[in-house]
């Protein structure tokens, strides 16, 4: 069971959180202007990263806030947590 640091509440057990998949997927401004392929890319295609992965978590049994986590999908080590709208530490995205 992961130990996750909620940016607002601090370290808690994983069972308080819900997983939300890959982070930084921005909903297109004008979906109606996209081709089927472009829309499908937003809707379905994910990086499936092996290594450090930016992902969303929700502290559902706590403050109910969503935030971002950088987690290594091999070792499960959590590299960083940061709030929505913030860039991942160490640049990127």
């Amino acid at each position, binding site marked *: 069971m992961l130990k996750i640091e909620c940016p607002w509440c601090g370290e808690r057990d994983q069972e308080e959180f819900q997983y939300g998949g890959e982070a930084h997927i921005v*909903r297109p401004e004008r979906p109606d202007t996209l081709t089927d392929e472009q829309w499908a890319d937003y809707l379905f295609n994910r990086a499936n990263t092996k290594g450090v992965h930016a992902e969303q978590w929700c502290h559902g049994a706590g403050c109910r806030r*969503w935030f971002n986590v950088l987690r290594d999908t091999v070792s499960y080590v959590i590299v960083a947590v940061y709030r929505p709208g913030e860039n991942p530490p160490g640049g990127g995205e």
Partner: protein
Amino acid sequence: MSTARRLQRGGLIDRSRRIRFSFNGKDYFGHPGDTLASALLAQGVRIFGRSFKYHRPRGIVGAGAEEPNALVQVGEGGFSTPNLKATQVELYEGLTARTVNGWPNLAFDIGAINNRLSRLLPAGFYYKTFMWPRSAWMRYERHIRRAAGLGHAPSLPDPDHYDKRHAHFDVFIAGGGPTGLTAALGAARAGARVLLVDEQTQLGGSLLFSPVLIGGRTGIEWIAELEAELRSFPEVTILSRSTVTGYYDHNFLVVNQRRTDHVGPGQAEPRLTRERLWRVRAKQVVIATGAIERPLVFDANDTPGVMLGSAVSTYIRRYAVSPGRSGAVFTNNDSGYQSALDMASAGMEVRAIVDVRKRPGADVLAAVSTYDIPIYQGYAVPSVQSGLQGLKRIEIAKLSPCGEDIVSHKGLVDCQVLAISGGWSPAVHLHSQSGGRPRYDALKACFVPGRPVQAERSAGACAGSFTLTACLREGADAGISAAAQSGWPGGYVDIPAVEESVQAPLQPFWEVPAGALSGNGVKKFLDFQNDTTASDIRLAAREGYRSIEHVKRYTALGFGTDQGKLGNINGLAILAKTLGKSPGEVGTTTFRPNYTPVTFGTVAGRTLGEQLFDPVRKTAIHAWHVRRGASFENVGQWKRPWFYPRDGEDMHAAVNRECLATRNGVGVLDASTLGKIDIRGPDAARFLNLLYTNNWDNLQPGRCRYGFMLGEDGMVMDDGVTTCLAPGHFLMTTTTGGAAAVLTWMERWLQTEWPDLKVYLTSVTDQWSVMSVAGPCARTVLQRVGCDLDLGGDAFPFMSMQVGQVAGIPARISRISFSGELAFEISVEANQGLALWETIMVAGRDYDITPYGTESMHVLRAEKGYVIVGQDTDGSVTPMDLGMDWIVSKKKDFIGKRSLSRSDTERPNRKQLVGLKTQDPSRVLPEGAQLVNSRQEAQPVPMIGHVSSSYFSANLGRSIALALVKGGLSRMGGTIYAHLMDGSVVPATICEPVFFDPENQRGKS
């Protein structure tokens, strides 16, 4: 039974006290300190069970968690526990135990016929033979499972309590042997908060049966000294009779503490729970789980009397039991010689030491030289012979120089016990569970821990260090460094001097070649519990299996309750040899939690029953429904009245009556369970526009609107009526089951995608009691109840909401209807709900007001063709598929809109919602029935759709159904066929899904 096998002196048992117990219905006794296994061995019991597949008689092999054979069901009634290992069961007065495997009894066993047919039962036999055709498996399964045994789940409620404890420690130490003890001392002296977990009754591990002196003291004395010091630290916790069952991510470890099993049912302090599950976060972990001795693989190596050398020593030294009158040793390493010494010192006649090595260690040779024991160097035991009481004699044969072949038959030696040692397997289970990958050490011929992935280190025998000196040193180092890395430097341990022999290297030896007595159908067993043999592994390789994970599943190697603690290593080495690889290239199977089985009671802990397992939600009116004799339906966690049967009514009769009463008079439904979300803020309408498919800009205060919510994939996710209470203030209703998910969905969009929107969400589901008064007499009844509003159709139109008083109670009243009837939905504060409901029931008495449940609600809405999300939709249905294009705005964007114009969502032949009328109006189709185009078609028959809702409508006097049918909207009037499970074919006519009052005159009236 005699106690002939109990030694007069020595051991860690209390001979002054007797404990009576029964085994398979016979009475025995033992002493405090005994296990069930040691007490039975002391009284001459040799056969403990029958094997899983061939039902061969089996005896004790080990002395701890690795024991594969002696599985017992302990205790009676609700206390009973199946599949305990007799080697781990402590005796208590009155204990009853039964063999789990061996129906109908140990002596005569029907399954033993499998033994004679064994050539017909190779690996994969059950898959190959019984799994197809399926009907055959169903016929055999019961008998096979019964013959296979493995205990019975107790059928009575468990009278005991179990609990869980959450804890945090600086240093977590798994294993209380010599390594774990010095680790604990090093960490404790540094000041760290330490948890030391040990599986056994008392600390000490291998020292409990070792003759080695530590700093001039016996092992027992040294343990006592160390334990006393450890207990003097307030920050040190010691758990005995506790197993580290799992090592999970981020140094989360689970410990199963057995608190009262050793005193028996009803004997413990009442405040004690029977078992406790510790859920521990540790900053640093020291794994000191020791090593498990490895059997040697030869013909009939499963014969009762063939035991691990360490087990023989344990029974002699710790339990003061000599397992037989005469013995022999078969080994490939020095540790077998200790078993010979222990047997000799116990007065057993040791008739041979058979060592596959040409050069045993000089120290051990010197040690056994004081006894007159024939030593065969460069020899093996290719087979053994048994009598009724197990092992009778062993065959000794000379090996070729490389050990691959038998050169000559040496002869037979009579003995009752054969102590075997194929070397030691480090218990790398926890390291592997933590994410580490064990690597093969060719020199030591074993898997040792690889690079740590988490904050853990292995020390001592579980790291491949097999001398006591190394264990003490590595333990101390590990404990000191673990403490330092968790913030507590300065630990220290003085390692005492140990006098132990210098070890000569072992000679890897995975399988003994066939001898003079072999070849008559007997087998070389790898996994005793599953009867997996060396030839099964070779067969799997011949049939194309390469990965050890696949071979494991095909042959069942390591699948038993012992999880292959003994045999897996031999199996993978034989596979490696067959494939021409090294054991390191084949690798181990994954070690998964749990290390040993955990009872369901422990897993459940306190979270039992309605209150704590899965909380039950009841509406404020629940007590009334119960008094009225309602049958309830579970909807999520809610209990909803399903129907209200009157005397003698079945469900069908009750639902027909409720539906007729609502259409012809007045009915009332408790609708409190629908999800309710209060939405406020200047951007609330903008947000609703994004969530719902239709337009919300123009909804005025006091007006209600029905909406569909889609996933971004365009599929219907939830629906409900949302009311504008005031500018920038809405009340959304959701489906009963979808409430929490919808709130989470809305929060997510607001927080992650549109944080600029000023919208605030509050769940108010539980704050309101909601009742729907529906039917032609609804208005009259509500007027009789007393309402300060003009309820007339002009003053209070359909799809509007007003705030007023009902029976003097402040209420929100909405004219919305899911039944299609004139209906008023009244919401009051939850604590007023029951009072208002009762008032309405009294006021409606003259109109025969009828409470109706969810079943009638479903029938009434189906008559109107209203869908239920999750019943008539399944996550693959768009609003267009439901024929509800009118609810989808063309102008604005909303979640899921773009997906509605994808090529797949626009294609013509999608499944679409239609009504079905069976041609025999009395025939009600089962929900889920598959629909096809004709009575008889060539297989495979194309599936055209399925029935999603189906009822008998009392109002229409016929059956009605909703169905999702390919291209259904263009097939009105056509015929379709439902193929049912009983083989019958029911024709039905496709029709519009609205069966009743299509103009909705009644709802608007």
